[in-house]
């Protein structure tokens, strides 16, 4: 039987829970339709957005995974990236969590190219308006491109399942502090 101790909870297998070091919440979304060239500044990938539940604590941190695939149109050069965006209800502002840049993945030779893009970040609030207990944070995945010749969420032979995806985990602040 589990037992309440002065420092935490002990379990029959000998393990003990002495802190709240856990995942607080998880949300994820997918988008499968192809989209035309997003341009340098960034275009929202479909309706790829997750709304996190009310933030547990000012110390919460958000672990973000984003991914999509692209195809160029066989011109002499191409570049692309996927980016993470957040909106905070605390100040009704939106921020870039991370924009790798329009040519963070880039080729300057002419041939047909496909590639898969990723953006993995931790949002600690430093450049995103801070993190405040009780607020709502919405995360989105955006795309960027270099030369006006990219198709996102492209069809690929043999492809099965989701293409663009956004997965966000809220981590308890005690994991870090």
């Amino acid at each position, binding site marked *: 039987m589990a037992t309440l101790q002065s420092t935490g909870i002990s379990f029959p297998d000998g393990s003990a*829970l002495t802190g709240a070091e856990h995942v607080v919440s998880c949300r994820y979304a997918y988008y499968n339709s192809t989209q035309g060239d997003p341009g340098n500044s960034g275009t929202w990938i479909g309706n790829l957005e997750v709304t996190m539940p009310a933030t547990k604590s000012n110390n919460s941190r958000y672990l973000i995974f984003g991914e999509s695939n692209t195809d160029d149109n066989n011109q002499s050069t191409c570049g692309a990236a996927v980016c993470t965006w957040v909106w905070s209800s605390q100040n009704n502002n939106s921020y870039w969590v991370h924009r790798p840049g329009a040519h963070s993945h880039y080729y300057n030779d002419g*041939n047909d*190219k496909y590639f898969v893009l990723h953006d993995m970040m931790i949002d600690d609030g430093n450049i995103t308006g801070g993190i405040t207990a009780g607020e709502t944070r919405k995360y989105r995945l955006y795309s960027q491109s270099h030369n006006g010749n990219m198709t996102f969420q492209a069809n690929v032979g043999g492809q099965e399942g989701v293409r663009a995806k956004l997965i966000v985990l809220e981590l308890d602040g005690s994991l870090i502090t």
Partner: protein
Amino acid sequence: MALTLGPNGITMANGSEITTGGQPRSLRWTSTSDNVAQTAGNQSGDTYLNMEITMPAAVDNDSVYLLYGHSNFDDNSGNTRGVGLSFWIEQQGQSVWVGRQGYHAHYESKPGDRYYNQHYWLMDNKWADGSEAGGNYGNSIRPIANVTRKYRMYYLANNGNMVGNCNYITAQAGPSGFFMCLELDGNLMPTDYGKPT
């Protein structure tokens, strides 16, 4: 301060709080440094990357599984090459593809020597019996409490010229292929968010 039970959860002696029941339930991973020559035909079949994970018996049937894998690839300097990773699941003798990036997810049509480090993230929650399974969003198998799930990583190739998990890259250290699975409590998500309804 001693542990206290409050109206919203548990406050630990170190001041941290547990206010929800959602937790990671298990984590398994595997890695390898072998070279996996392509065994399947061009575009027509998947080559096994020798990475398999058997998850412990599912804590409940609301579990969802976060999958991640990467592998180094080398072509044979042909005119064109392409590759994509695939995740496979087996439960109670039934197996399906959780997802496949496709055989030219990473691709170039220009001659020359190429190496790719291919990555794949996926949340395994698209059960074939759920409303979200339509529209090519995957076809996975709903977890069953106390039943194990086995995952593998494969690759599809555009031409017959790829080597996976390649271990002969300059200054390389550590594994050349990696595969992990994190079982998450369905209580981390809202009702109907990957949970049985």
